[in-house]
């Protein structure tokens, strides 16, 4: 028995020893997490950056903007990521969480614009949608169709029941989960706007904020809206296979797969590069990435990666990212953010 105890103790030490030996090595690869919308752009930049030969190629994971912020704001240190991509701006609550965990020096870099499209297979009929129609199709609770100022659980099962001009097809939409920035942006730009087209709901924004939020932000859970994970490529494939389904994702995915899918018109506007850049297409949002300044001197290559991302040949109108579907910022804005990135100007507040 005594022998057994001695043995077990020795073994425990062996184990811990082995683990400690390996846990102590240093990291010299940049670790990036975040948005699945920015992922295609970030990976291209990372690959080119790595090919430069001086630094290791950054490792990029697609976790969704929200998931990325959670990991990013967990603290400063080698085991936490250095950069997070986001398809929406950081929220106040996230900024506070970051500050609480010691992540106080954050550099915000806007990289461009992206539209959100509601796409379906090329061979399926083209839909002409309005934001109000999308709200009625996807919300958890909608205004009672009979009238009055109350909401009921969403009764609409087909597109036609919302609007007679739409086809008589079951509502089936594949969209992002709550970890995704695209979801937050979609909720803000489409659901809220669509809901506010009802005057009484719009008035609620001032009188009862919580109720307003519950109505505008709630997305139905009865199976018509399927949360398809952080893998937008997979959604594209599923759309190809399922002619009745629609997908919600960033414009870049539509652009890169234009031979398989097409985007629905929203309020008469087709989702094209020009329409989004000029602002005519109403659903567009900026893309960002955030850097921990504290890591910039520690993990090799962060400054250089940021420089590569913010150079004109990358994010400019003739840059290689615009060929991937990124809509570049206007010149003045680009210059401002480029300067901020180069100087690692810290984000003071989100106002």
């Amino acid at each position, binding site marked *: 028995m005594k022998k057994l105890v001695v043995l077990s103790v*020795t*073994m425990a030490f*062996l184990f811990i020893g082995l683990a400690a030996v390996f846990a102590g*090595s240093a990291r010299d690869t940049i670790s990036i997490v975040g948005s699945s919308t920015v992922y295609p752009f970030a990976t291209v930049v990372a690959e080119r950056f790595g090919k430069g030969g001086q630094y290791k190629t950054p490792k990029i994971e697609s976790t969704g903007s929200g*998931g990325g912020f959670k990991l990013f704001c967990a603290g*400063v240190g080698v085991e936490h990521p250095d950069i997070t991509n986001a398809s929406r701006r950081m929220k106040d609550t996230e900024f506070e969480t970051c500050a609480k965990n010691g992540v106080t020096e954050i550099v915000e870099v806007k990289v461009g614009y992206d539209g959100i499209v509601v796409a379906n297979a090329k061979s399926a009929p083209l839909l002409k949608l309005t934001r109000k129609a999308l709200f009625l199709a996807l919300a958890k609770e909608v205004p009672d169709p009979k009238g009055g100022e109350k909401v009921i659980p969403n009764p609409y099962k087909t597109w036609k029941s919302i609007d007679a001009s739409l086809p008589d097809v079951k509502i089936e939409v594949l969209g992002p989960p*709550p970890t995704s920035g695209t979801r937050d942006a979609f909720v803000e730009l489409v659901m809220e706007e669509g809901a506010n087209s009802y005057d009484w709901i719009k008035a609620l924004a001032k009188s009862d904020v919580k109720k307003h939020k519950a109505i505008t932000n709630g997305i139905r*859970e009865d199976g018509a809206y399927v949360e398809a994970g952080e893998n937008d490529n997979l959604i594209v494939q599923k759309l190809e296979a399922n002619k009745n389904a629609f997908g919600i994702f960033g414009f870049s995915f539509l652009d890169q797969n234009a031979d398989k899918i097409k985007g629905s018109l929203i309020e008469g506007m087709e989702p094209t590069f020009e329409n989004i850049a000029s602002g005519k297409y109403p659903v567009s949002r900026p893309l960002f990435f955030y850097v921990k300044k504290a890591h910039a001197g520690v993990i090799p290559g962060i*400054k250089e990666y940021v420089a590569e991302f913010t150079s004109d040949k990358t994010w400019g109108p003739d840059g290689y990212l615009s060929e991937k579907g990124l809509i570049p910022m206007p010149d003045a804005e680009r210059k401002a953010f480029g300067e901020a990135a180069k100087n690692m100007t810290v984000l003071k507040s989100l106002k």
Partner: protein
Amino acid sequence: MPTVLLILILLGMSSAAFYLGHRRAVELSGRSSKKIALHSRPVYYGALTALWCGIPALLIFVFWLAFEGNIITRMVLSDLPARYRDLPDDRTNLLVNNIKNQVEGNIVSIKEDPDILQAAQHYRNLRSVSRTALGITVLSLAIGGILLVWRRIKPSFRARNHVETVVRCILIVCSIIAILTTIGIVLSVLYESIRFFKEVPLSDFLFGLEWSPQTAIRKDQVGSSGAFGAIPVLLGTALISAIAMVVAVPVGLMSAIYLSEYAGSRFRAAVKPLIEILAGIPTVVYGFFAALTVAPFIRNAGGYLGLDVSSESALAAGLVMGIMIIPFVSSLSDDFINAVPQSLRDGAYSLGATRSETIKQVILPAALPGIVGGVLLAVSRAIGETMIVVMAAGLAANMTVNPFKAVTTVTVQIVTLLVGDQEFDSPKTLAAFALGLLLFLVTLVLNIIALRVVQKYREQYE
């Protein structure tokens, strides 16, 4: 002194120790005029010397290296200029990373900071001091070990027994590792699951009918309602496994019967390995095959026949999973069918039964417990299968038994919940562990039942 070199020297010394002990023992046995018989063969004396030389040294070596990193880091940090010493923990962490990168010769961010360079140099110095000390300690331990044993070598010294005790200890240690693994798995999954059940009651989980786990991840966000009822997910698993069994059991069983009863030995020798190949194909390949070829085929066929088949139907995933399980059912059944003695068959033939009648009425009933056990094991394999369903099945937790619709399974949900949000506090992530525990328990129960069935009902042939 680099670690690899030290290890090699240690090995060399152990070999030298072996030689020394061996020679000493041989010497001693032949020194006096008549040969004294050694207690053990000379090899054992050598082995004992080598073991006492090598093992304590090795243990100290690992021990030292484990803590060397931390201690040196602490010493280096305490010698840094004052402004570094007051940094909060996480900054210190980053600083340490910088220093270590410099030391290891990795690419470094700040090339010119003299403080870092100095600290790195300090680190290197301390490390070489430590390594030298380690070298001396280890070598002296090794030599001490050799001397200790060498002096005690006498013809009556029971070397073999000591060696065997040491070897036995090593064997026990290895077994303990294997056992610890079992316990470790159960404990880790259990721990996280208990944290989950504190937030979501067990009855809700087991009997709830709604599965929408994608809760909001921030205070100001509105996500799903966070319903964690596992029944739709379990139903999905059951549906796909059922389809897989419907494919695998008849095909597997009939293949086994044909191969063992009807086929000639050359046919058998050629076909059996081919069927075994099906078992060796990685599941990700099956998943890719299902998504690439099978699902579109079924959807098109369904469209042709006028049925509304989803592009990720349970049928596609179940079909491919069934193909994967065929070899399991086939080889297990084959073993049990072959175990039935020839005398039973001969008896049936002599009464005028045809082959199929013999099989249906004599052999299958005799081999039935084994076959049932095999089928249960195959079911547990189907339930735990991940990649095929991740790639070919859907994500919507539908409560349906229609094989043409998309359903989701336990394993798909585990993957979806954990690839992404990694915080171990939210019910969302912990739900994955609860599902994992459920999976583990169900497969455990199935395996135990399979074992019992085979043991209890197995025919005892004489």
